[in-house]
């Protein structure tokens, strides 16, 4: 793993440095923390909602094709 890491590190020195500098400025900032906390919740809930809605749509489309007596569980 360290070997793979070493490769990546050498290839992406510049990118790493940029991220590190960015992080040093931002860690103390509570506003930044809140922004990421909210982003986290929104992303997770939105993803779950998207999956649920698409699943429901697909279920409805499929259910229309199946005769009533084959879906007694509803």
């Amino acid at each position, binding site marked *: *793993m*360290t*070997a*793979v890491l*070493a*490769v990546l590190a*050498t290839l992406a020195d510049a990118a790493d440095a940029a991220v590190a500098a960015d992080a040093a400025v931002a860690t103390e900032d509570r506003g930044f923390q809140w922004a990421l906390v909210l982003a986290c919740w929104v992303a997770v809930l939105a993803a779950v909602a998207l999956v649920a809605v698409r699943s429901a749509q697909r279920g409805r489309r499929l259910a229309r094709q199946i005769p009533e007596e084959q879906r007694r569980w509803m």
Partner: protein
Amino acid sequence: MLRDAALVAGKDLRLEARSRVALNQVAPFALLVLMLFAFALDPDRGILARVTPGLYWVAVLFSGLLAVQRAFAVESTDGVADALRLSGLDPAGVFLGKVAAVAVQLLALEVLLGLGVVVLYGADPSSVALLVPTCLAATLGLAAAGSVYGILAAGLRVRETLLPLLLLPVLAPVLIAATSAFESALGGFPGEGWRWLGLLVVFAALYTGLGLATFGVLLEDG
């Protein structure tokens, strides 16, 4: 069971000895991978020496993938799969035979790649006591997991794309453990490598066990 395994392994190795696909195509591919790494990583800056264990095992993994694909492609053509089922061989024996045949090819490949690494990258193979068992355990793990997924994907139209997707994440622990063991062996502090060797042995035992248990299911009608 062991007799069946010997039969299947003998058949596969004879097939390989006659067709020479591994020798003529897979082995040059493995060396090519080593050379490509050297081109990509600017050999003058000493990176190559530091990342040798990782590159070695990535090269083994990729050429091993080809070997596995090849070993099961021969089963899916010409109705060989049906013949295998009709032969009445014990599925567990077939599995062990496949593992043995793949493992022998992989070991040959590893020796070749090892020579390549010593010659091209200047690695120092003096801690043989750790390197050899690591190779053996890693190879058994690769061959066992490769055989399970190889037979699973054999005969599917999408096998060339499906097999790497299924197999490479499973083999990632082997890559990590074998690389770490090699790092400590080549770096001159073999003491730490033994823990990783233990992980490799557990992995090999686990997938051999799972393969023995599930191969019958996978061999059912093609």
